[in-house]
């Protein structure tokens, strides 16, 4: 989508721009003066300690939570000044994969995927059926899945169906809230590959909240770190690995991070050796 290299972020187009965000519940502030940019065509990994407010930030950007101060611009539009029409159009330009899938439990997989298309576009039923099967194939599920109910799906299938629904309107931005949590390492790796492939194929911008270090190394162009109610660091993972911040150090160099690093002198090389298809592009 864009040719600007990650090292010159200022020249890239920010599809989401958050400035001075303040969010809280009662007296307790979760975000205080938070700034964040999401650039077109990148995969941004978003990490932070459990309970630091990653989901709160995502929900605030999506307009599900109210902020106390600050501005959020989506596609260059301030979300506070949007008309209902703008809101509708923005709704068609982003897709969300909720942590628990949030599939409509009384609809089949097919109807779940068709729901956004049916509501927003005047397409015939045969086209809707065809497109639903296409989206299923896109996320790597067999056509038989189409007539199942969400309660009959496994965790990994739920995530895939939810991704298919998020992609139904061919959005420009996809929000993924812990897409690989609850999946075994192989499924999680497959899901990372899937997101990487889709991101390349469709030119998506991806905002991914994750705790999965493998995901961060495998598909993220940049990583933003939430701590002390702010984004304490943002940049390519190789830069963050050199950071002196104590939390970042223990995050990447702790017990669980060290295995990854021991594979190479720095994280990027380690991953490049392991997952050449993803990193060859960058």
């Amino acid at each position, binding site marked *: 989508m864009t040719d600007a290299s990650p090292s010159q972020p200022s020249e890239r187009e920010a599809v989401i721009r958050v400035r001075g965000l303040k969010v809280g519940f009662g007296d307790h502030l979760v975000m205080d003066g938070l700034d964040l940019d999401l650039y077109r065509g990148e995969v941004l990994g978003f990490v932070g300690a459990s309970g630091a407010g990653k989901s709160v930030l995502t929900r605030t950007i999506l307009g599900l939570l109210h902020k106390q101060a600050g501005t959020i611009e989506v596609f*260059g539009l301030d979300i506070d000044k949007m008309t209902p029409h703008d809101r509708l159009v923005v709704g068609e330009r982003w897709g969300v994969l909720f942590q628990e899938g949030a599939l409509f439990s009384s609809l089949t997989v097919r109807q779940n995927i068709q729901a956004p298309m049916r509501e927003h576009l005047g397409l015939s039923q045969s086209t809707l059926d*065809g497109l639903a099967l*296409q989206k299923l194939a896109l996320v790597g599920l067999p056509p038989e899945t189409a007539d199942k109910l969400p309660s009959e799906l496994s965790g990994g299938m739920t995530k895939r169906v939810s991704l298919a629904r998020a992609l139904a309107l061919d959005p420009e931005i996809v929000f993924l809230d812990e897409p690989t949590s609850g999946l075994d390492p192989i499924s999680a790796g497959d899901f990372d590959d899937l997101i990487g492939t889709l991101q390349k194929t469709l030119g998506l911008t991806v905002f991914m909240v994750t705790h999965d270090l493998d995901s961060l190394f495998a598909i993220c162009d940049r990583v933003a770190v939430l701590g002390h109610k702010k984004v304490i660091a943002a940049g390519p993972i190789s830069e963050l690995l050199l950071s002196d911040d104590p939390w970042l150090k223990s995050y990447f160099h702790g017990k669980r991070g060290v295995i990854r690093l021991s594979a190479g002198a720095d994280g990027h090389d380690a991953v490049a050796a392991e997952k050449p298809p993803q990193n060859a592009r960058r």
Partner: protein
Amino acid sequence: MSAVSARPERLVTTTPSVAREDSQDAVVLSLAGEWIVAAGHQLEAAGASLLSSAKDAKRVIFDLTGLQRMDTAGAWFIDRAQVELAAAGASVSYRGEQPKHDILLKEAGYHPPDKSSLVHPAPTVALLSAIGETIYDVGVDFLDIVDYLGEVVVMFLRLAPQPWRWRWTPMVYHLEMYGLRSVPIILLINFLVGAIVTQQGIFQLAKFGAADYAVSLVGVLGLRELGVLMTSIMIAGRTGSAITAEIGSMKMREEIDALKVMALDPLEVLIIPRLVALVIALPLLTFLADVAQMAGGLLVSWIYAGITPAVFINRLQSAIWVQTFLVGLIKAPFMAIVIGLIAATEGMEVRGSAESLGRCVTSSVVKSIFMVIVMDGLFAMFFATVDY
């Protein structure tokens, strides 16, 4: 920021279109505009014309040079045309496509639907099978409830000599929720029912000059049948639905499974306290209902027939015995058991979806009201037979 449009319009600036051009040996279809899903039915029309414009051709070339944008839906329509034309015997090739188009056409291509999955049985067969399934389900439901009743009785007998294992706190809590909090609505509807029965009795019996017997009517009918019936129906709707919804949503969120793996029996922890609370609450409420019905009768006979409270009470005393009151009261605990059992079994029937929770709550209320009325009829026959 320069490339960001000031207004996020629907993003379709040029509608997708197809132009046909016949060269010497092939049909060239030039695609233009934005082939994206936001174009909706325009995209659908363009996809259809892509298919129809080249129906007769032997060699077809899709020229993508003028294509401004393509997304997965656009790719699906283009690929569908390619697949179907190829199936019709034409050779199809692309011209002027960009690498990203290639990836999209490959990754997000057309998959012909599997026709075998769309087979429906004949309507008569479907109807017969639906009837059969329903009858079978009714039988299974009945067995389930009998099964549950057995389990409850066994659990009850096991707990009876061990009062320290009784869960007093939830029991008292449920007694408050099901009993105390139902008092206002039970008093209100039974007052109204008593009043209505008396008013109709006065009007109809006055034709025989027997308006005074309206007091006997409300006394006997209210105490024997209506008090317990109205209370049970109200509790089936108010409390039965609550029990089904509580247990059903616990089932949905795997809380019941969590109890089981802690070696706790959901029957002992969740259902017995509710059932016991209901069995205590319903007779108490029935007593209040009886009082309310008499009060309604008293007020209406005073207003419509000029029967003073003193006379009303005098007549009532001669019309009813303690038995009349007990006949109604004896039925209450049985009604409570039926309502509680149906509500609990339906709650346990809930599966994963929100829809199934709704269905089970509905069926819990409908079944318990039905069973309450059936039971009342059976009791009426029984008491008539034993001449009580």
